[in-house]
């Protein structure tokens, strides 16, 4: 999967789970402060990413702050370097 595809998938999940307009899910959008994500949303996002890419470590999204952080994390995981 290309880096652009990964970004597309993550953004789509963020938009669907957080019920926000796609234009708000920019790379630097703060998940909690800007997009009103809470712990349940991040748990949903985690499951959605696992459904797509297989089991992920529990702490995968523990320290993400922005949509871009999630995209970077996904790229890192899929590159096999984590």
């Amino acid at each position, binding site marked *: 999967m290309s880096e652009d595809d990964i970004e597309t998938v993550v953004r789509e999940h963020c938009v669907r789970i*957080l*019920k926000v307009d796609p234009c708000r899910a920019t790379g630097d959008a703060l998940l909690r402060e800007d997009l009103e994500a809470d712990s*349940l949303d991040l748990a*949903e996002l*985690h499951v959605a990413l696992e459904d797509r890419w297989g089991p992920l470590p529990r702490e995968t999204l523990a320290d993400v702050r922005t949509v871009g952080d999630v995209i970077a994390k996904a790229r890192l995981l899929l590159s096999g370097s984590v």
Partner: protein
Amino acid sequence: MRVPGFRVVVTGLGVRTPAGAHPKEVWNALLAGRSTARPITSFDTEGLGAGFACQIASLDMGAYLTAKQASRLDRMAQLAVCAATDALADAGALRAPPQRRAVVTGTCFGGRTTDEVVMLGGRHPERGDPGPLSVPMAMHNSAAAAISIHHRIQGPSLSVETACASGSHAIGEAGRLVRDGYADVAIAGGAEACITPTVLLGFRRCQVLSQRDDAPERASRPFDSDRDGFVLAEGAAFVVLESLEHAMRRDAHVYAELTGYASASDAHHLTAPSPQGEGAVRCMRAALADAGLAPEEIAHVNAHGTGTPLNDVAEAQAINEVFGPAKVAVTSVKGVTGHAIAAAGAIEAVTAVLSLQERAIPPTANLDHVDPRCDVDVVGRVRPMTPRPVMSNSFGFGGHNATLIFSPC
């Protein structure tokens, strides 16, 4: 309520039922005597043995919750939030601080739609496919939680589960919280959204559902000779209860006083009522005693009246035992609304209160010939009523009985 304490009054009503989303709408549907049973179109009923129910056609949450808030609630809790919010709006601005407000809800199946999607969906039949929201959406207290969160209710928030009596028990127990001084205001009622393939099949196999597939609108016929079971329904209804003092301080419109409540158990059988409705007799008598009323002071009984052969006979026998043979008018609104399980008692509590306002007894729909074994005065056509106390019964699988009495105030 006779136990010394605060007098408890009803100051707000809210409903979401197949017969309407406003109390007046429901009342008019009851007067018209038109059943709301229709063929089910929301899922394939092939092989389920019953293909109709009383469903709410459209549910627009837009005026109540954001899309994200709504997506975190099962249909059951969505219905509850709509009806409870309407009841609170009807009651007007409250004075009690959040810590002095309570919510008591009743449900039987909880977030059943969520449960079924989780259990039956996905690629792992042995464990389903639960997401992070499956537990908070399926849990039976989700309606109480949602109402507490959305209306900042910081006193007691509880869910009562007594099957088909849940809604009445919720209102009665909430009334006790106010009477006994644990809360100044309580929002109470029931909600159910269980028209799903497994619930329909389970009830059908219990042999309690009407199978009148050729004429769904004639299927729910409480106390009629040709009844063959109940018609499954969904819905929610809530009342705002508050101490009379609190209501007077804020100059609220008072619909009625909750003067009597009793809860009694058959201790007999998992599904069948006790012989001659003995548990129901004790429950009605205890409610009368709670209200300090004699049987002859009751204007009419809003019966549980499900339309199952067993319930209606036992309830009629119990009513005759308490009131004397054919001494009190009896009606069942389930001919119109169907049986909304845990919401039923709350819907009927609202209709009992409305009958005091409207000074009329709504008719029992589809009543062609009263079953001779149900030898009570069943109201088949709308009947004028002097404003006197009204009794509402609910009985649940497991032998849970609840009786409420509302009086003019």
